[in-house]
């Protein structure tokens, strides 16, 4: 979901740790190392990487292209390829029938059936283009806060894993407990109480 769309979803994160100076050089190097790879033309069924906010299908992290004002702005791109199960079943059945006709046999072994399935899957994977999913993010480095423009659980998990691999920094998702514990300035005593809280029963 694009940052400049009329309606967006937002998940908030806190970034734990800092990059080694010079920060812009470190950012550019890390982003280039983990830029999304195209998977059209190979048999991978998924790819995850960074892409440019303004050029999601032609990423370029040269210079400070990912800097806007005080923010780092770039995008997570996930490429997924899914073979419809019925299509896989149809092509496996066709291939099995051809194999039987060619060999003059009446049955195929389990191993042969598995080999046919793998072969058909690879052939179809090469023919079916991957679908791109692009999720923008805004990282306020000084505030150690990050807005991720998605509320999808799977996209959030990909973001957290790739962010750690790329920058060696952890992202902590801000849900009710972490928001209270990490960002609300509670005292040590209040945080101890928070830890022991149980749900309120309003209907008693």
């Amino acid at each position, binding site marked *: 979901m694009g*940052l*400049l769309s*009329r*309606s*967006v*979803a*937002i*998940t*908030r994160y806190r970034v734990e740790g800092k990059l080694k100076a010079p920060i812009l050089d470190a950012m550019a190097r890390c982003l280039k190392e983990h830029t999304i790879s195209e998977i059209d033309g190979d048999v991978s069924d998924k790819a995850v990487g960074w892409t440019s*906010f*303004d050029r999601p299908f032609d990423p370029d992290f040269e210079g400070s292209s990912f800097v*806007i*004002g005080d*923010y780092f*702005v770039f995008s997570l791109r996930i490429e997924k390829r899914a073979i419809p199960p019925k299509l896989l079943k149809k092509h496996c059945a066709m291939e099995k029938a051809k194999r039987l006709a060619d060999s003059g046999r009446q049955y195929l072994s389990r191993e042969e059936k598995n080999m046919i399935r793998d072969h058909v899957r690879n052939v179809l994977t090469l023919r079916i283009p991957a679908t791109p999913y692009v999720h923008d993010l*805004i990282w306020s480095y000084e505030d150690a806060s990050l*807005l991720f423009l998605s*509320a999808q659980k799977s996209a959030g998990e990909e973001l957290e894993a790739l962010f750690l691999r790329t920058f060696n920094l952890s992202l*902590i*998702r*801000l*849900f*009710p*407990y*972490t*928001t*209270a*514990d*990490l*960002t*609300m*300035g*509670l005292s040590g005593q*209040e945080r101890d*109480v*928070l*830890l022991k*809280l*149980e*749900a*309120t*029963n*309003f*209907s008693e």
Partner: protein
Amino acid sequence: MLDVSVAYNRYKFLGYEYLTWLWFVMEKDQEKIRALAPEAVSLEIGNRIVLENKTTDAPESITITGDDAGLEEGMLALRKGAIVTELNLLLKTGEQQWQFTLKGEGLHFAGFKTPPTGPVESREDLEGAVLEKAYLCGRAIQCMDKLFKTFITLRVSEEWRRKVVPRIKQWMHA
């Protein structure tokens, strides 16, 4: 700190209680909202509330949608033990308006609409629009953070049990 996935599930109720408290404050104490967040002229319920009642053997979910939907069913559900799990909100300051759904479980925003940003025709326009959008998102988020801070400070104090919960119950059963 606790393991994140453990903390997420263990303390989901905090988000639900926050939204329930927020509805109560919007109904009974708009002045408090203005005092806490002077930038907010008003905070109102938008076009959707989702409530869940987990106190029964078969948990129930109640969804109220529509711009002019009555909230009586929601109040009835609250009286039966339901809590608010999603709340669509309208935040207004001057002539500007934000609308978003706040999800209690993860405290994330869905359908987040800010006041419109300028048109984008060049790289400079794009940077300007991004900065404007970040600023506009940030204003609403800061406002909601102030409200959450008030809630959580009350929630970890004795005042929650002694004063706030009785007032919320009184409001539910009025």
